[in-house]
């Protein structure tokens, strides 16, 4: 069943149109991540769903109800903000119960809900404290609790972990995932962090310039990006792009030629026919290149190690190959001196081909 549905959404501020003809359906219990760099419209979209921004055109449905003109409080949503947005003059307990008091719920019910949220988030001992006496992680937990007590179907997260340091961020990330697994609410989560997106999401919507570039599960987004923007945005370091063209090889098979080097396309499943002479871009992720050994169905290419970046578990090599600089991920135990000549092989079944003009996947 559809939980949240956005139909033909348009939002303009005067002459500037931020979102245009945006459609999005989110299933009940789904964890959807809106991913994009700053200014791509992801937070704007979330604010529209929350009712904090008045839309220009289109409709928004939540749980089968048309909420397009409803106030935020009537939409059945809870929201968690990047800056926590806790009321500084109130204790944690009052922060949690504020919305329920405004809604004039009976005190017994308020106490019950606050106690339940405090138990789930393990903030019971903090209830009498003020937000200024809490650490960043505790504050964000309280902020999540404030959404929790509202007993709503849809949770909206607006970059909730961006203000935390790396260690706390990964801890709370796991906690949010656990929360989703136990509550099974619909969650819409805005972030610019691809790790958060890949680890948390059932589906990811990658946005750029107010347009959803691709909406798919993390695996599809990672391995079969629909265009070069998605391919380059996801993955760190970025996918290697080689500009070249399609040609016919000596044995009559279709090959890819870039910088005078020929790549066989064995194992690549193209959606479009690959006609010789077509200008294309080959995208290969750093971990889909093998060093000094033949990958499945690949052939060997010579390259020179330029820079080595040991990262503990991995060892990242920057290589010069066929006139390009290419990033390759190897095991951390393997070390290479700069200037070393190595042989590469590419796993074409995991590579991507893009049209050079449209930048769309072929």
């Amino acid at each position, binding site marked *: 069943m559809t939980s949240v549905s956005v139909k033909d959404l348009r939002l303009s501020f005067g002459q500037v149109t931020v979102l245009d003809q945006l459609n999005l359906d989110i299933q009940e219990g789904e964890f959807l991540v809106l991913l994009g760099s700053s200014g791509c419209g992801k937070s704007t979209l979330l604010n529209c769903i929350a009712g*904090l921004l008045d839309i220009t055109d289109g409709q928004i449905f939540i749980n089968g109800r048309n909420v397009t003109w409803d106030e935020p409080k009537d939409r059945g949503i809870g929201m968690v903000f990047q800056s926590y947005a806790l009321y500084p003059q109130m204790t944690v307990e009052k922060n949690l119960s504020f919305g329920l008091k405004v809604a004039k719920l009976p005190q017994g019910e308020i106490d019950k809900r606050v106690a339940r949220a405090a138990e789930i988030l393990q903030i019971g001992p903090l209830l009498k404290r003020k937000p200024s006496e809490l650490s960043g992680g505790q504050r964000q937990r309280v902020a999540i609790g404030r959404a929790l007590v509202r007993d709503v179907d849809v949770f909206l997260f607006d970059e909730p972990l961006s203000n935390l340091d790396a260690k706390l961020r990964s801890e709370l990330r796991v906690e949010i995932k656990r929360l989703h697994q136990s509550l099974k609410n619909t969650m819409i989560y805005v972030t610019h962090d691809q790790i958060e997106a890949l680890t948390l999401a059932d589906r990811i919507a990658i946005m750029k310039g107010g347009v959803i570039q691709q909406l798919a599960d993390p695996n599809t987004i990672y391995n079969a990006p629909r265009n070069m923007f998605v391919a380059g945005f996801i993955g760190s370091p970025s996918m290697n792009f080689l500009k070249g063209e399609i040609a016919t090889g000596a044995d009559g098979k279709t090959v890819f030629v870039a910088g005078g080097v020929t790549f066989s396309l064995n194992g690549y499943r193209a959606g479009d026919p690959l006609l010789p002479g077509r200008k294309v871009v080959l995208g290969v992720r750093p971990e889909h290149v093998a060093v000094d050994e033949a990958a499945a169905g690949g052939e060997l290419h010579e390259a020179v190690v330029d820079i080595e970046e040991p990262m503990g578990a991995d060892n990242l090599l920057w290589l010069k190959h066929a006139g390009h600089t290419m990033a390759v991920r190897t095991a951390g135990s393997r070390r290479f001196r700069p200037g070393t000549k190595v042989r590469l092989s590419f796993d074409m079944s995991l590579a991507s081909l893009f049209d050079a003009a449209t930048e769309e996947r072929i």
Partner: protein
Amino acid sequence: MSDRGHLKKTAHLAEVPAALEAGPRGAKPRRLVSTRTIVVYGTLFVAAAYYLLPLYVMIVTSLKGMPEIRVGNIFSPPLEITFEPWVKAWSSACTGLNCDGLSRGFWNSVMITVPSTIISIAVASINGYALSNWRFKGADIFFTILIVGAFIPYQVMLYPLVIVLREIGLYGSLAGLVIVHTIFGMPILTLLFRNYFASLPEELFKAARVDGAGFWGIFLKIMVPMSLPIFVVAMILQVTGIWNDFLFGVVFTRPEYYPMTVQLNNIVNSVQGVKEYNVNMAATILTGAFPLLVYFVSGRLFVRGIAAGAVKG
């Protein structure tokens, strides 16, 4: 010998020559007297004396009897301290019409200042909140008009306002003067509150909306409790401004409602009899004492960091 050499090598500073080791170490010493400190403290002292000397003369003169003042040295401390001038200034100095001193003006000023301050701050804070958080249609135009109002000289508006107040029947009354003060405080106070509310994290406002609080709920339960510092600033501005006002007080009220400043002027400028400098000085200090007191008391209320903890700080 070789053993000692070995030991020295393992010690960390073994490589540093003894001459360098004897050099500077620890905190850099500061010279107590330097050209810089002399210039800084000298300037501060002169500036302080410039402002304190008149105050000294006033206090000293107000404590002298008239015969002593006639001797002529205004800087000399009183030989015989008397509080007679203070009592007279407060309760029996004559303004030509009546002889009950400043006390009448004091209570008038209180009755003008207190409601004017409360009403103007209440209205301006709501204005500022609406302008910064609820971007209603025409908010920018409204705000621009309000700010332009702050730049128009008072004198231009004086006569039209007199006519308006006369037409609505409030000319000469305390209520009329309170309205005038409230109106004239509006541009600067609205600007003050608008900028302060705009500096509060917008997400707090959004969170309160998701929690279901409305226009007044957010204002009274979220915004006002976070805004004590700016309310204190506005209060100081209004209290001192209205208390020290002379022009509106003399234009918009009848003599029986004259504020303290006008009363002071009438006492000092009354032409009958001898000029009683000691009474005049005492009356002036009494008039200025109230704003001074407000500064001292509310300075402590300047609690900063009220918003700490709302956002990552």
